[in-house]
């Protein structure tokens, strides 16, 4: 019994490892795990949730996860999508937020945070240029100190 339970744990761990290798198609420095898209993993099922309702990457993400699972020999593991509870940027891991920042995208503000930090120079003298940026999840901002424009991952 003990060994069977261990094996199931091993399968789950192996699945998580595979998922950690699947990048977000729009922001390839973060994985689908970093983004908090993976809601649950069991030995026979991976449950994912879309970020934005209209995110065109949703279908690509599901296909990429399918391909990665198949390539790792998990052909019989199903992928299920759930809307509830709705995804929020709070589910992006701290590691994911650090990766976003290193990539030049200001991570979403945590609760209580007010100032948007420039991911280039760290200044908080920043301003919004456009509510909508290159993808639905990002807004365009500008740093008033180093004058660089940058993307802010919007709180959601």
């Amino acid at each position, binding site marked *: 019994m003990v060994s069977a339970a261990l094996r199931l744990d091993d399968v789950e761990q192996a699945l998580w490892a595979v998922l950690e290798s699947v990048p977000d198609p729009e922001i390839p420095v973060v994985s689908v795990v970093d983004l908090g898209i993976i809601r649950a993993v069991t030995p026979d099922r991976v449950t994912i949730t879309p970020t934005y*309702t209209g995110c065109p990457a949703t279908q690509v993400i599901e296909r990429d996860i399918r391909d990665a699972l198949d390539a790792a020999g998990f052909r019989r593991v199903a992928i299920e999508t759930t809307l509830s509870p709705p995804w929020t940027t709070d589910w992006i891991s701290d590691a994911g937020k650090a990766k976003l920042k290193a990539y030049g995208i200001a991570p979403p503000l945590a609760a209580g945070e007010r100032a948007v930090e420039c991911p280039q120079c760290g200044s908080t003298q920043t301003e919004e240029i456009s509510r909508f940026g290159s993808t*639905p999840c990002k807004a365009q901002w500008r740093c008033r100190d180093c004058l660089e424009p940058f993307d802010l991952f919007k709180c959601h």
Partner: protein
Amino acid sequence: MPSLPVIQPEDVAKAARSRPGGAFDAPDMDENGVRYDTLLRLGDDSLILGQRLGEWCGHAPSVEVDLSLANMGLDLIGQATHFLNAAGECEGKGRDGDRLAFHRDVLDFRCCWLVEQPNGDFAQTISRQFLFSTWQKMLFDHLTASKDESIAAVAAKAVKEVAYHAELSAEWVIRLGDGTEESRRRMIDGLDWNWRFVPELFEMDAVATEAAERGIGADVTAFRADYDARIASVLAEATLDAPPNQRPILGGRRGHHSEHLGHILAPMQFLPRTYPDAKW
């Protein structure tokens, strides 16, 4: 000029069977029928407005406006996908969201007149968005408490996005209304065009009443006062007067549409209807 087809004896028989009020194909008023029609109304509003906004892609006055309109359109198409997939499951005849979007005829659509309205100029598009998104935000707030799990889930997911649409369009109403003489004139004209379609948003017909009583739909009259107050406060900030009330135009929820809807569906449905088995 082409005229309507000749009325056949079976049409007369069908009209005799229909309920008072003129619905072509009145929905079944059992639980499933009400649920199906409610999902279609929600899905068709989002689908048609999303398609309308898509017409701006590559034509907006600046890149950031182009992006914002296309992104709002994407959000709406995403909502429509969820609502119409659920409608297809509810109907149980093997139709999915794509099938409902691309293979239904104009009289079977259940969207309101406001979302069908032509884009006109940017001010007309923004005034339509402002009037619709302000309403949709309040509607989705109520629908998060729906007893229907799929409606509640989509509403909870989409309400944050719709809040953005409402805020963005309100900002533009203020900027254009309180802007130059030209932008002000255009915003007044845009509001004037769309104003007569607002009462339909608050119409409680038999299906909406039944849906609200069963706890799956919302009683839209519950937030009419909040809606009017919000619209009035934005218009005041935009230094604009509310347009005079006109004769309300109703009927979209029962399949009576403006001439514009068919013209949206033609380019949207042409490819899938001509090549029904085409794949990417």
